[in-house]
């Protein structure tokens, strides 16, 4: 693909046109491959439930609405909206938590010179390497002892306590890239760190913050393991857990509604992504991925 789209030389007009066509052809090929599975899922959601598993056709022979209309009845007496509200609550809290705690921590790393900073920074980076599973069991024991299972607390506590090192790192790098003159000017004006953080650094760090928010939202929305382990009451289940309730290893599974709901569940993530994606590149670009 890349060779097909050898950058057109600016000099020759003709080559530019060829380059342009090649570019669009290349992009369309990638698009077709990337979207094929997505179209399959959309197609499957209009197939009769019996036909979904192991079906080879991309599109249904005769589209049915039953999978979607079935959602209106809820699952096992729980309205579908309940799962969506819970997921939304989780995702929004996660975003708020990550943005607040990570930006505070990042500010300290980037803008305050305090004893032990380098050591703490190295420790923070080190936590990037930890597999989630190492911590899962002891964390579960901890929250269980605090009697906090079956609440959102275990799911979002880490977000409010800046344990997501990747985002802290992203913001640190971004804040370091901000012109030093700004916070020095603020200091001269008599602003303390809190003011500098809140009214200067935070607004300027918008791309990095939004980038973190996008990733956090997607991760929380798609999280399965966390809710599975911590939530017990079906009324508190998130979408990812709710989807599993269509499954029955010993009886009839409703794959139709399962796939329909997973499709509906995509809408909020796509909406969130679309609304903010233009910041994504900037957030990454200015976050010290430069040398």
């Amino acid at each position, binding site marked *: 693909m890349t060779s097909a789209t050898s950058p057109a030389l600016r000099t020759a007009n003709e080559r530019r046109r060829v380059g342009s066509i090649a570019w669009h052809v290349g992009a369309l090929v990638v698009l077709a491959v990337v979207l094929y599975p997505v179209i399959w899922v959309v197609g499957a959601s209009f197939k009769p439930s019996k036909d979904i598993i192991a079906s080879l056709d991309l599109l249904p022979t005769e589209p049915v609405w039953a999978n979607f209309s079935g959602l209106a009845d809820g699952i096992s007496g729980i309205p579908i909206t309940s799962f969506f509200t819970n997921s939304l609550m989780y995702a929004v809290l996660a975003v708020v938590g990550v943005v607040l705690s990570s930006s505070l921590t990042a500010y300290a790393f980037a803008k305050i010179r*305090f004893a032990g900073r380098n050591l703490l920074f190295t420790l923070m980076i080190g936590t990037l390497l930890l*597999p989630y599973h*190492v911590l899962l*069991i002891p964390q579960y024991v901890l929250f269980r002892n605090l009697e906090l299972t079956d609440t959102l607390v275990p799911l979002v506590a880490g977000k409010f306590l800046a*344990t997501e090192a990747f985002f802290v790192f992203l913001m640190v790098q971004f804040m370091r890239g901000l012109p030093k003159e700004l916070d020095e000017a603020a200091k001269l004006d008599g602003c303390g760190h809190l003011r500098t953080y809140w009214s200067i650094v935070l607004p300027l760090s918008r791309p990095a913050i939004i980038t973190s928010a996008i990733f956090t939202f997607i991760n929380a929305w798609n999280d399965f393991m966390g809710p599975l382990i911590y939530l017990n009451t079906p009324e508190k289940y998130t979408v990812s857990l709710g989807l599993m309730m269509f499954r029955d290893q010993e009886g009839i599974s409703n794959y139709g509604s399962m796939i329909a709901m997973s499709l509906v569940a995509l809408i909020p993530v796509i909406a969130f992504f679309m609304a903010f994606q233009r910041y994504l590149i900037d957030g990454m*670009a200015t976050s010290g*991925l430069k040398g």
Partner: protein
Amino acid sequence: MTLVKEAPPRPAKKRPAAPAAGRGGRRRENLAGYLFMSPWIAGFLLLTAGPMIASLYYAFTSYNLFTPPQWVGLDNFTTMFQDPRWQKSVEVTLKYVVVATPLKLLLALGVALLLAQKRRGQGLYRAAFYMPSLIGASVSVGFVWRALFSDDAIVDRTQKIFGLDVGGWIGNPDYVIYALVALSIWQFGAPMVIFLAGLKQVPQELYEAAEVDGAGPLRRFWNITLPMISPVLFFNVLLESIHAFQVFGSAYVVSDTRCGPADATLVYTCYLYQKGFKEAQMGFASAMAWTLVIAVALVTAVLFWSQKKWVHYEEAAK
């Protein structure tokens, strides 16, 4: 990448520029620093360091969650190294990491190069290419993947055109891992965005100068783009390999929860999960987890060591 390069954020030479406020100022800075850091410190102690120490302890015990952990020394580790399923999971994971990571990065880089050009519809393509990453490892991905890689489905038919008749991949222990690899490649959105960010920062003047010198597109890619984005490439290699070592969700949904057939998609964390949460052998699972930590740390160290040879930190770009 900047991880360690800049780990001590500003090198010592900047020290003299420190606030002239003297000792009181420094104390105030320390206080402010730790106040700002307090959420992280609390999180680190409570949710990271504490649990880490606990799981390190469990790794040397026999612990079924119900009765208190019993110290068994190195037993978990010796059992683990001799366990054929553990060996299998290591083999599967390494295969996955080694095959999926480069392919995914190659595609992400290629597409990023494509999208870095200013063309109509560029933003739309970018959003569309990111779409698979939004879906994550949901059950519908499991369904579609199992369908696409079954007998006579599109992948099978396509490969038959090229004379490769191996049948569906999903039921075949020798091929199913490549269905997983394909899933990883399909979700190339995140590294693509990071590459795009890197490409955006390559100064245009460099290309213009090279063009004046008569360098063709390949030469320009090799001599300018690649060195200029090498820090970004390094960052992606690091991040994607760490993720690949920890892959779980996609193996779980693609194999219909069993990480099979015949343990062919038994990635490391899947076995860890089976041992810990299905069989309640928390000691064994913790030993597995710590072995993974050490392996990942080693890989990271090697990557950092290697970056001296191929990652260029251009002063100009700083």
